């Protein structure tokens, strides 16, 4: 099958492996398990943190309540306050503390506000940094809310535990400036992607329309040769069929010698930015493939191909029919194709008959090729096509020029039409035909043998299945005793069959 065949095999294998059914199931299971695991781990960590927190709270509450037995004016021993401003900034959740604070505020009036920041800082030193990192702000918040609402002791008590809780929880998160590089880059990329989509799509459409206007419109070359143009029915049906943002098809039918002609335009994926970046690594050109399906009676046994010298060997290996029937044609003693091209043919006679002098002069010869046929990639005539149901195919591959240089393809398109007639009319000589028929018969027999092996295996498999089905039916119906007897009988029969037949002679 060759390297290309193996690659396509690998592609197919990969495709089957990654089909939705199998992979998706496993991925979904994995994702669900991972999420569950994460949730469990996270919630267990939280539980530990929260319980630790509340223990701390309980301890402080007890401490403060003990202290409050003494007259409240005495401040905590460590705290050195310059002014006589006495505030026991215990944990904000304590109700008693708040009441005392409120009394003090009422007594001092405006002084408290000015001294607030100094006191708050001292309080921060007193309390353990690790546990109450967010404390100073919370107390300032708390006091700010208390000063205006002197009567709402209950309300502030409820808000107090809330800021202290997330304050402790928030401690591990670093508070730095948030950078959004990933998001910015991602959004910019998406915007650029969408822009490229619209621009690229339009460009491809313009190219396709330019080709169609040049060749497929009224009084164009296709109109003069085919009666049915386009894929739809009706007079006003569109000529081109858009299969993807970079694939366009043109269909024509209704001509002698051939059933139909299908021109497929495969442009570069200008609409996909990622593929465009990939083209920087491995570039490609806009390609056009023209497939002509010949009538069964119109084409003789011809296997012939012309390709650029560099691609000839790859083409030979890629196409199964070329590999089985044809070989490279080396011509030295007469006027032949340009240096750039190589011919591959089943027989030299066919090659010489098809490559007429006129053709060589105008299209494929030395001078003509460089001047007129720079867009030629390959062409391949076969009556044993390995692809699809239709066996007799002429295939041409060209590159597509820019929309203002479409005329460069004219001669190549004319060559396509010429070959439809040439191959349709061509008849092999008797010797060539007999040789060709013999080769084809051989190949067909080989193929048949291989398919027969497969068929036998399929028959065996079906027999096995039927037997199993019968067994199961029997098991349902009869008692185990009867079944056992049957199995023993079967085993004995198998044994007898496998034992070699010993020939006995009477000797006495």
């Amino acid at each position, binding site marked *: 099958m060759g390297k290309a065949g193996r690659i396509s095999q690998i*592609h*197919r294998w*990969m*495709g*089957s492996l*990654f*089909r*939705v059914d199998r*992979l*998706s199931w496993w*991925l979904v299971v*994995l*994702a669900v398990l*991972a*999420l569950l695991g*994460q949730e469990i781990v*996270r919630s267990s960590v939280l539980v530990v943190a929260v319980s630790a927190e509340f223990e701390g709270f309980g301890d402080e509450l007890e401490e403060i309540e003990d202290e409050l037995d003494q007259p409240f004016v005495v401040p905590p021993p460590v705290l050195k306050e310059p002014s006589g401003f006495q505030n026991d900034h215990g944990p904000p959740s304590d109700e008693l503390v708040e009441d005392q604070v409120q009394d003090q505020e009422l007594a001092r009036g405006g002084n408290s506000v000015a001294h607030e920041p100094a006191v708050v800082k001292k309080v921060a030193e007193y309390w353990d940094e690790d546990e109450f990192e967010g404390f100073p702000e919370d107390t300032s918040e708390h006091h700010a809310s208390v000063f205006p609402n002197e009567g709402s002791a209950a309300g502030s008590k409820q808000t107090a535990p809330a800021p202290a809780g*997330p304050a402790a929880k*928030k401690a591990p*998160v670093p508070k730095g400036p*948030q950078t959004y590089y*990933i998001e910015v880059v*991602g959004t910019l*990329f*998406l915007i650029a*992607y969408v822009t490229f*989509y619209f621009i690229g799509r339009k460009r491809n459409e313009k190219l396709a329309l330019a080709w169609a206007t040049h060749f497929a419109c009224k009084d164009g070359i296709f109109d*003069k*040769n*085919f*009666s*049915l143009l386009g*894929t739809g*029915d009706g007079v006003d049906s569109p000529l081109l*069929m*858009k*299969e*993807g*943002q970079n*694939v366009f098809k043109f*269909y024509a*039918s*209704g*001509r*002698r010698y051939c*059933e*139909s002609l*299908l021109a497929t335009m495969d442009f570069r*994926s200008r*609409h*996909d930015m*990622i*593929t465009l970046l990939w083209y920087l690594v491995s570039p490609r050109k806009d390609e056009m493939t023209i497939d002509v399906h010949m009538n069964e009676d119109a084409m003789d046994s011809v296997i012939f191909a012309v390709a650029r010298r560099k691609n000839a060997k790859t083409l030979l290996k890629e196409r199964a029919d070329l590999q089985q029937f044809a070989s490279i044609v080396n011509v030295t003693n007469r006027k032949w194709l340009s240096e750039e091209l190589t011919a591959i043919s089943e027989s030299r006679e066919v090659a010489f008959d098809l490559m007429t002098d*006129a053709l060589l002069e105008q299209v494929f010869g030395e001078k003509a090729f460089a001047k007129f046929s720079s867009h030629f990639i390959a062409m391949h005539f076969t009556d044993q096509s390995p692809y*699809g149901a239709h066996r007799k195919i002429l295939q041409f591959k060209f590159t597509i020029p820019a929309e203002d240089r479409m005329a460069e393809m004219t001669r190549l398109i004319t060559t396509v*039409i*010429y070959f439809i*007639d040439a191959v349709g009319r061509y008849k092999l000589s008797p010797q060539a035909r007999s040789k060709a028929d013999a080769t084809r018969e051989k190949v067909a027999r080989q193929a048949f043998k291989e398919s027969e092996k497969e068929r036998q295996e399929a028959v065996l498999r079906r027999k096995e299945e039927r037997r199993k089905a019968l067994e199961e039916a029997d098991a349902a119906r009869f008692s185990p005793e009867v079944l056992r007897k049957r199995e023993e009988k079967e085993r004995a029969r198998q044994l007898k069959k496998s034992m070699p037949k010993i020939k006995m002679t009477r000797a006495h």
Partner: protein
Amino acid sequence: MSDKADPRQPAAAKPYVHPVMNPVDLPPDYPSLLAVMCGVIGVMLRNKIGSWFALIFCLQSFINMKNVETDLKQVVMAFTFAVMGMITNYLGPGSKAAATQTGG
């Protein structure tokens, strides 16, 4: 080079028939594969970059879809993973953004 007679044969014209493609024979859709893998990475490993890549590859696979071989299942699955990843990474309970939001 060719006959003078009109080569057209309207009687022989055959209308176009779409070739039927077996979904198994199609080349695998690499962008959607990558989208699914990146989406899974983004969701499971809480990776923001993975989620963004998943979204981008999803978009690419959707754009490159040809009319004949529309197989939406894989793309839709990849898109679900990408969106899930985005939500988990930006609005989920363990993310930084959510913490700063609630802590305020």
